């Protein structure tokens, strides 16, 4: 094929957008509406999951040792715990550090009444989990280790958070799946209808002796452009809205922003951009490709 022919089909793809402006607008609006809903829901779910995850990250167990334990044994226990897959972080807190923390955070000037460290011998490990649902298994393991006296934890809260996380995962996967399926159905239908009304045009091209590629290429390009624009509009809108809300929440509701950790806009768009563009352009491509093919057997 000559380069001039390829260029011609590309130019025709762009021109088709304007030649059939009502179809183009209707398709772009459908794609935009579907992907806007999808994007908004994704941003909400991603933030919700992040909030639960942040709460989980603060969940830690504290490991205390027998009084006569050696520093060497404490180090061994620390190494064994850190090797566990569910452990994300382990911090050694000496009895001195624990006393300093207690004075600074809770006792203040009342600490002067103590001549010696009341927490002497209470060295501990603070263990943070990457998967809070495995907390009880870790506690059982740690308690079975010689030299460990006690483990402090919040088992009920861990169970609740773990349950919420699982629930969000299932519900969001279900809703995102349904939204995507509806989007794909609506978008492909719009593209199909738009091309079907131009069946006559395809027939004329075929009667004159146009190859399948020559007929199909402008339609497919047009479909992809519609998908691209249809995906870019909601991405831009969501980006603006999300940024606006983030700034306003931080500025006006500082207490809320201290309690909850919102995902930065870049993190949201790290996944949302490729998925939205993929869905828009992909359906534009596949929808036009298959619809034109139906009318090519002339």
């Amino acid at each position, binding site marked *: 094929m000559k380069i001039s*022919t390829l260029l011609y089909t590309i130019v025709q793809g762009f021109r088709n957008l304007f030649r059939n402006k009502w179809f183009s607008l209707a398709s772009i609006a459908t794609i935009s509406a579907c992907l806007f809903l999808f994007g908004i829901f994704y941003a909400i779910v991603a933030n919700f999951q992040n909030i639960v995850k942040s709460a989980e990250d603060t969940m830690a167990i504290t490991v205390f040792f027998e009084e006569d334990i050696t520093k060497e044994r404490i180090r061994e226990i620390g190494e064994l715990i850190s090797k566990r897959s569910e452990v994300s972080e382990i911090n050694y807190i000496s009895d001195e550090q624990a006393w300093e923390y207690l004075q600074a955070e809770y006792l203040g000037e009342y600490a002067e009444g103590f001549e010696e460290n009341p927490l002497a011998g209470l060295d501990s490990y603070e263990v943070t989990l990457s998967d809070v649902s495995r907390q009880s298994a870790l506690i059982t393991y740690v308690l079975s280790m010689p030299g460990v006296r006690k483990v402090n934890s919040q088992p009920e809260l861990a169970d609740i958070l773990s349950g919420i996380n699982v629930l969000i995962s299932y519900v969001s996967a279900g809703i995102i799946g349904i939204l995507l399926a509806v989007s794909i159905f609506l978008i492909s239908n719009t593209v199909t209808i738009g091309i079907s009304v131009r069946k006559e045009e395809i027939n004329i091209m*075929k009667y*004159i*002796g146009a190859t399948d590629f020559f007929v199909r290429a402008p339609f497919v390009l047009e479909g992809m452009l519609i998908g691209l624009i249809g995906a870019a509009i909601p991405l831009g809108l969501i980006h603006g809205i999300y940024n606006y809300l983030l700034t306003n929440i931080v500025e006006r509701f500082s207490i809320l922003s201290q309690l909850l950790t919102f995902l930065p806009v870049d993190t949201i768009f790290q996944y949302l951009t490729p998925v939205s563009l993929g869905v828009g352009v992909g359906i534009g491509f596949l929808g036009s490709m298959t619809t034109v093919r139906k009318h090519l*057997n002339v």
Partner: protein
Amino acid sequence: MGKKDLIKLRQDKMMNENGIIFLDNVNKTYSTGSPAINGVTLKITQGEFVFVVGDSGSGKSTLIKLLLRELTATSGIVYVMGSDLALLKHRSIPKFRRNIGVVFQDFRLLNDRNVYENVAFAQRIVETPGNEIQRNVPAILATVGLAGKYKAKTKQLSGGEQQRVALARALVNRPSILLADEPTGNLDPKNSWEIMKLLEDINEQGTTVLVVTHNKEIVNTMQKRVITMKRGVVINDQEKGGYIDED
């Protein structure tokens, strides 16, 4: 000699022996079971001007579709320009059609493009260089009497002018055969005669012309070969014939 040369040689031999269009005992039955073409055998030689006449349902449109390879025969063989159309692969159909100009009753123009673009489109399909398109399109538009209208949108033209655009599009690639399916069906008598005059001129320049029509006056006046069909069968085939009125 390569494979392509051999095929060309065979096609030329076939054309010399059997004409540019040759149907050998052709049947076409649709999925509904009714035969549209029933045992048709006919031969059209290069450079002929032929009318195909008959009532609705006589098989005229099916004949055109068979010649364009839009349909394939249920049985029998259809040869066009020496090629057995049943053996033509899907990817070879576009190249085959580029040697056949086609004109329809309803013009079938690309209405979102102007006159020039409609005609140029046929040249772009065959990858004619841009400078040649710029030369050929105005020339063919002048031939069909539309020299000053190349910028007009097709919807702004009269029926006669739209048919001329369709004719220009069909002819710009210099096809060997021109198929016209009811070309005057939507035109007034004056425009009908002008289109027929153009078709006659084209035929005189060597193009084989096959016109499907209902227009008795034109058929009877022009005194060309007339093939009459009825219920899928050729009931009359006459040199310098006339319209056989079934009523």
